[in-house]
């Protein structure tokens, strides 16, 4: 095996892992894009919604679905069960807390209420993190499925060498992520609900005159965003050990993805998340693994500093 072959194999492996992880990150980012990109609500607790999705899925898995569906199908049924629960959580949080600092009430607050949202959701984030620690303890857990220790071999691609392994757990999670995103974009572009969501996001005032219940539309968008990120969390949990404080790292990943894809674009957020996944995995080729996430933070800083409007967006400020 030559030097070049070793390099190629490492590169292809990182690329394959990056694409799978990227698909899950992409789904996560789409959840945030519903909340931040479309409703312009800054949600700091998004990472903790994901963490909550992980624990909820774990709860269903260990209590119900593992026994009924077994360790292969069980995890995915558990994620499916967790989704409506997280929709409800998002709906309630918006109703009781977030609506106090969004919409028409932000006019009097500084920075259109963005500061209030940031700080309020920081508070929610602290409650969720520490609350989860009180309930579940600080140790690492995961949804255990034999799939995550099985891999599909592709290759040898170059003579007898260069084989790429695709982790089955991660691969299935990536495929489900893509399916969810396709369903979501069909729902948003085709259905009546999706149209009213987009209208309420685009121009709240005009939507009110058109008879759309904007408050309700925002609430549903927030709940959907919570749910989608939680689904991504549940899928990630099948191949990624987690603990109550896992959210903080992912908040940055999510914002990086959304900003990279261009604020306001759902599909953009998916590609943004994909790009972040690739950066994270490819950075392992040159950086020590401990600095993987530090690399993402640096990329995030570079994106917001150099191109805050994202790769596709445009900025304009009126004076």
């Amino acid at each position, binding site marked *: 095996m030559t030097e070049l072959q070793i390099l190629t194999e490492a590169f292809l492996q990182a690329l394959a892992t990056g694409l799978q992880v990227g698909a899950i990150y992409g789904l996560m980012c789409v959840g945030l894009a519903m909340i931040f990109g479309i409703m312009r609500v800054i949600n700091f607790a998004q990472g903790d919604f994901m963490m909550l999705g992980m624990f909820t899925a774990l709860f269903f898995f260990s209590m119900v679905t593992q026994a009924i569906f077994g360790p292969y199908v069980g995890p995915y049924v558990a994620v499916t069960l967790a989704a409506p629960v997280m929709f409800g959580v998002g709906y309630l949080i918006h109703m009781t807390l977030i609506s106090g600092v969004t919409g028409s009430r932000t006019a009097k607050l500084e920075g259109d209420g963005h500061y209030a949202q940031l700080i309020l959701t920081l508070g929610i984030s602290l409650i969720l993190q520490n609350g989860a620690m009180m309930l579940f303890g600080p140790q690492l857990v995961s949804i255990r499925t034999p799939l995550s220790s099985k891999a599909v071999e592709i290759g040898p691609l170059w003579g007898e060498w260069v084989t790429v392994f695709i982790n089955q757990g991660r691969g299935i999670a990536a495929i489900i992520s893509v399916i969810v995103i396709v369903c979501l974009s069909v729902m948003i572009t085709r259905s009546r609900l999706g149209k009213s969501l987009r209208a309420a996001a685009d121009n709240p005032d005009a939507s009110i005159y058109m008879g759309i219940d904007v408050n309700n539309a925002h609430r549903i968008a927030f709940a959907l965003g919570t749910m989608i990120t939680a689904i991504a969390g549940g899928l990630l949990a099948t191949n990624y050990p987690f603990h109550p404080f896992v959210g903080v790292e992912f908040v940055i990943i999510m914002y990086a993805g959304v900003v990279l894809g261009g604020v306001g674009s759902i599909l953009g957020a998916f590609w943004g998340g994909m790009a972040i996944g690739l950066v994270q995995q490819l950075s392992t080729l040159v950086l*020590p693994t401990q600095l993987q996430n530090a690399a993402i933070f640096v990329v995030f*800083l570079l994106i917001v*500093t150099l191109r805050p409007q994202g790769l596709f967006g445009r900025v304009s400020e009126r004076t």
Partner: protein
Amino acid sequence: MTILRSLLPVFIIAAVYFVAAMMVTNSYHQLLLTLVLVWACFGLAWNMLSGYTGLISFGHAAFFGLGAYATVLAQINFGISPIIMIPASGVIGAIAGILIGMPTFRLRGHYFALAMLAYPLALVYVFDWLGYQEVTFPLMRENAAWFMQFSDRRVYTAIALVMLLTFMIITRLVERSRFGMSLIAIKQNEAAAEAAGINTLEWKLKAIALSGAMASMTGAFYSIVLLVVTPQSVFGMLVSAQALTVAMFGGVGTVWGPVIGAAFIIPVGDILHAELGSSFPGIQGVILGMAIVLVILVAPEGVFWKVRDYLARRKAKRDGISDQPDAAAEASLATTAFEIAQKTTIPAKRTISDEIILDVRNISKSFGGLKAVEDVSFEVRRGMILGIIGPNGAGKTTLFNLLNGFIKPDQGNVFVKGTDMVGKRPHALAAARVGRTFQVMRPFMRMTVAQNVKVGAYVHAKSETHAEQLAEEAVHRVGLSAIEDQLASTLTTKQLRLMELGRALAGQPEILLLDETLAGLGHSEVGDVVDAIRSLADEGVTIVIIEHTMQAMVRLVDQFLVLDHGEVLVQGDPQAVTKDRRVVEAYLGKKWSENA
């Protein structure tokens, strides 16, 4: 001296606190008394940047942690005492502040907050990777005092108290000076602050340097008190949240806020942690979170302001003062305006000199494919009033933004009194005596009229008193003397327009760029403002004014410049322009064409 006198209650409270702390013997309570002061210091550090400039930082743990690690590593590796390292940490923090601020200040609002979060989180990984998962101060048997290892824990409380008092005095000094005024102006409206001659980037960098230094020194001291430093305990999310929480809870943008917040939140959180921490780990974070949520929903600006507003309202009720604007003030305002009008009913012969004060040559700017301003050239002579007209989207405001530095042109030059000013920032143009008002009004809503105008005066003021004097003069010139102590948020549109004019005037401009100053005014009000503008011109100020109401302009300006689709259609005196066929047909429309 007045600063120290204003802090008299602080000194009294500090003395009481000191005596109480000296009587406490329980070592846990002693630690708590020290930590309240430490977090109050950290809150004040955060407040210096985020409280006054309004740029919320989620990353003050970066400074805090750098100070802590610098102190512990310096003692382990070089045997340097914390007594030296605490001030040295201040220097490190200031440098880190400038290094972080330079790229990050390009961002606004939530992007700034998120970007700030990334710094300490990245540092957690870096320090983990460097192998500093847990660093402990070596115990010093000899020279313990020199290494600040006191067996009597009360000494730490005393040192923390001195540190807090110093920080409070610094904060108050900043608050009462041009420094603080500039920061508050930036918080309320950054673009207006820049146009009023404040070098916003420079002041923000000074603020983050000072804030970083304070945070870093606090971190250094904290590490000595606890003796152990881990990445999570100094760079972690909870550390940044702590600064934000104590300041937000107590009140943002005041010297009292972080102190009140720390005095309440730290003991409550810590006692809960001590009582319930073993059975409910994380209870402290939950309480902290709940405090934040509650404060934001009930008193978004913090306890201090809530109480102050409440007391002010009660006092007003007792004194029987209503919120109605003072009738007498209103009347005197009318008279002043009337006087100005009187003075100018006979148009004074303005002298328009031959000196070209503003020379714009071939200036162009496009946004993507849209050519907003294309190859525009014109000259303005000293003393004249030039009206720039054109339909919406003709590029008028963009042209102003190019002239005073908000946007950099793709090509072309702008000569002010013979010096090319292209590429200079707005505050530099204000210093070169080019003033500017905005189409969308940009008052500093929480400041009084006099303070608003004073912000504009700093650019040429030699001292505080000089600034006040210039401001008073400017307020008088626009006829707002009677209401100079009212908050800007209580003014009418006309008064706000005049106040913005006053703010621009306070910078002693030779050229004034007025962007749709008459927009949103009633018919009679237009007359008042037009008169005020004319009287300024009579005093020798050169004026360039954008407008699309033709009528008011015809009797005001010496020359018109007509823009359409970013290009100059024609420049000339009002009669000629209004009769120009191209202008009449292409811009003014059929109605004017028939009248002509």
